[in-house]
């Protein structure tokens, strides 16, 4: 709690400044693509959203594993916070991808391997959150959701390799691949910077949400204490 008190303002300032700088860089200074023209600018929000969506799920999976093995409640809260953020970034990735797909591919949606596996990720997030919300017993809900999350983590390598296994419409990996990135530095640099800005923002949200969830859990303990006194 003391850490978050110091870290939240620092993260807030860094995230705000880097996002503003990143948006200006990608909208005004980054060059247009020679084939896709100005629509290629959508890459600067679509790809970082995908990174955060997958990163948040990995955080969830790690938190779920630590919670199931060592019964560490803070890890469970981290998983819950990551799920609440990750679901929005996954939706953002799908929506921006769809908007980009229309002028580039001529369609809003295609049942391509990458698109479908990210849609599955979105449903996994929804399932995780719904399962937690449906259970009256917090601990039972957390345990069931953690198992679902770990089973669902099989989807992460599927997302990564979907463009290799089912190479249909979505382009293959361009940033992290053997032999280095295929993107020109003029596109790669603002993209990496936006990825950094999105990650900072994710970190900020995690800190605020974790703080809120810790206080909520403390409140539940006090409520139980008060209820016990009344009996």
């Amino acid at each position, binding site marked *: 709690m003391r850490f978050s008190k110091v870290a939240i303002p620092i993260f807030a300032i860094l995230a705000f400044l880097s*996002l503003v700088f990143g*948006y200006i*860089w990608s*909208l*005004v*200074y*980054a*060059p*247009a693509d020679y084939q896709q*023209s*100005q*629509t290629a*600018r*959508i890459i600067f*929000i*679509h790809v970082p*959203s995908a990174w955060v969506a997958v990163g948040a799920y990995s955080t969830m999976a790690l938190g779920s594993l630590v919670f199931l093995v060592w019964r560490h409640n803070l890890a469970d809260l981290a998983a819950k916070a990551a799920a609440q*953020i990750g679901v*929005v*970034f996954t*939706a*953002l990735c799908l*929506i*921006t991808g769809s*908007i*980009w797909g*229309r*002028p580039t591919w001529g369609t809003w949606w295609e049942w391509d391997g990458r698109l479908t596996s990210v849609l599955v990720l979105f449903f996994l997030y929804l399932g995780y959150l719904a399962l937690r919300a449906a259970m009256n017993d917090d601990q039972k809900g957390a345990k069931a959701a953690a198992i679902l999350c770990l089973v669902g983590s099989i989807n992460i390598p599927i997302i990564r390799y979907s463009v290799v296994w089912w190479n249909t419409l979505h382009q293959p990996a361009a940033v992290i691949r053997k032999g280095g990135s295929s993107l020109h530095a003029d596109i790669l640099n603002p993209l990496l910077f936006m990825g950094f800005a999105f990650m900072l*923002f994710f970190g*900020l*949200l995690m800190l*605020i*949400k974790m*703080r*809120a*969830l810790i*206080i*909520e859990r*403390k*409140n539940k303990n*006090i*409520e139980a*204490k*008060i209820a016990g*006194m009344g009996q």
Partner: protein
Amino acid sequence: MMQPQFKTFQEFLYMDNYGPYVFTAFGIAVICKMILLFLAIKSEKKAQKQSQILEAILNEKN
């Protein structure tokens, strides 16, 4: 030194006829982030407020 890719503001908005796609995508991204931040701060404030009320009740009972 980086150079702006557009000569005029109109050219920037027009984006070679792709303005609606680009600005819709960027607009949704900004709105999503603002909503996420607003909801996170709101839930933290609500929890803090609830905590103060419960602490007061507990102290009263003690």
